[in-house]
């Protein structure tokens, strides 16, 4: 892209910030013609370290699982190939879980990307718009013949994630500094992430619950969501699942579907 006269400095300064193979840009200098190598490296270091720190702040459980050295090497690699596109750092790292799935040294931890996806959803829920959760009394007031057509308006913070691994248990065990007992990672788990008021909560969904929650959060009617859930699991308990989702704060209000 052409630059206006006299404004090419950023195009010259920027490329080496995240590329250690490039040399110090032309045009920068120390005082009285002194070299600018280590001086320019201050900017390189600020950029790289602050972006790694941003990923560490978004993915603390992943860092605890891998250890800081492993995490920072993995994050450095990601930062260099995928720097943020937005100045809002809490939006950064959306493609980091997929990067982990491809990252050569993380192949022994196949559940790591799903744990990361829960952490990313946790932060999205944390910053989501405020809304009052649906009161359980509202559902009791619906006449039984309208139930199948009922549509739930999702809370802005509500998210549902599915994993082939025990991602919720691993996530929960590593979000603080308490000792971690041995976890069987091979049990599939599904997560419901909500923030009814100001505290983000992450819970495991029962069998069929993820299909059910996912359909409802997508705006599908209750009857259709229940059928899909029963297809997914014969153990699916509709009453317990509706009560659980409402209690978790997954919805804000009710609407009737197509009449």
């Amino acid at each position: 892209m052409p630059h206006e006269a006299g404004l090419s400095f950023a195009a010259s300064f920027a490329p080496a910030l995240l590329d250690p193979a490039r040399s110090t840009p032309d045009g920068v200098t120390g005082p009285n013609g002194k070299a600018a190598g280590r001086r320019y490296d201050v900017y390189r270091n600020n950029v790289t370290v602050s972006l790694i720190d941003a990923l560490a702040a978004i993915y603390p459980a992943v860092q605890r699982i891998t250890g800081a050295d492993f995490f920072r090497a993995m994050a450095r690699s990601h930062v260099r190939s995928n720097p943020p596109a937005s100045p809002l750092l809490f939006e950064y790292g959306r493609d980091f879980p997929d990067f982990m799935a491809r990252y050569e040294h993380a192949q022994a931890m196949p559940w790591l990307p799903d744990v990361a996806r829960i952490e990313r959803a946790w932060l999205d829920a944390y910053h989501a718009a405020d809304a009052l959760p649906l009161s359980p009394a509202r559902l009791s007031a619906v006449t039984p013949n309208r139930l199948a057509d009922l549509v739930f308006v999702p809370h802005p913070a509500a998210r549902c994630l599915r994993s082939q691994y025990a991602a919720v248990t691993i996530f929960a065990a590593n979000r603080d500094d308490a000792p971690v007992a041995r976890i069987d990672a091979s049990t599939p788990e599904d997560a419901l992430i909500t923030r009814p008021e100001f505290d983000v909560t992450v819970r495991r969904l029962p069998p069929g619950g993820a299909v059910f929650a996912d359909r409802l959060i997508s705006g599908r009617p209750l009857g259709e969501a229940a059928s899909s859930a029963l297809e997914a699991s014969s153990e699916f308990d509709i009453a317990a699942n509706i009560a659980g989702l409402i209690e978790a704060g997954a919805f804000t209000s009710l609407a009737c579907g197509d009449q």
Partner: protein
Amino acid sequence: MSTVTKSTGPAAVPLRFATPIGGVAGTSFKPEHLPAILEGGPRRGFFEVHAENYMGAGGPPHRALEAIRRDHPLSLHGVCMSIGGPRPLDKTHLARFRGLVARYQPALVSEHLAWSTHETSFFNDLLPLPYTEATLACVCDHIDQVQEAIRRPLLLENPSTYVAFRESSMSETDFIRAVAERTGCGLLLDVNNVFVSATNHGFSALEYLANFPLSQVREIHLAGHAEQADDEGDLLLIDSQDGPVADAVWKLYEIVIRLRGAVPTLIEWDSKIPDWPVLQAEAIAAQAILDRHQSAVPAGERHAA
């Protein structure tokens, strides 16, 4: 709030500064300090936040900021507008910034003479620019756009830098003075940045301050710095904002206040955050200096626009 902060008129109406909060010392607001701050109750002073941290839709950050704002003046400090960059300002980001100003009615609104975004990448650092007629025109155009959006003057902060550009054709102080004259913006004088840049580029901090348009200064920043070495092994100071204010910076600050009169002064502390009493003690030290000079009438407020 005073009516001067409600700038709803057409663009032709002159921009007005919000009601001055006087010569008080404030601190960066860090959410981990919220319980200690609330427990202490309302106090003299103000809090400054990085605007970008409050650009989410909802949740705990806004709840904390509302709690702080209820009892204290607020300073909204933008970090990512890329005012010093050659690219057009990000309109979405500008709209978010305007929204925060409207929602929280801050007493002070500031941004940096620096850039952080180029093409599609955000670098999360305050990057330097050459001082030329071309960059001056570009910076002034960007500040005009910001002031148009927020309907009030912006305070522009002098940078700390580690490199200079061979193409620069004017001094930093001449550049900043020209920006203030052309755009009507106010200035945020970061005294630590002056000390850091003076050391790094081998000029006199006192001479810089003598050339700086102090009458346009409406806020001061103080912060700690770290020491490294350049290619020749000479001292290179890093604007790390991770420790107490250095003695030399306190001395420069007192000189500035003696010349300028008392203006809102912020203790900036952004990493290795200490317990609240440690940060508060730095603000108390700044307040003591301000109080020694409260009688002096700030030059820029004798004939406020």
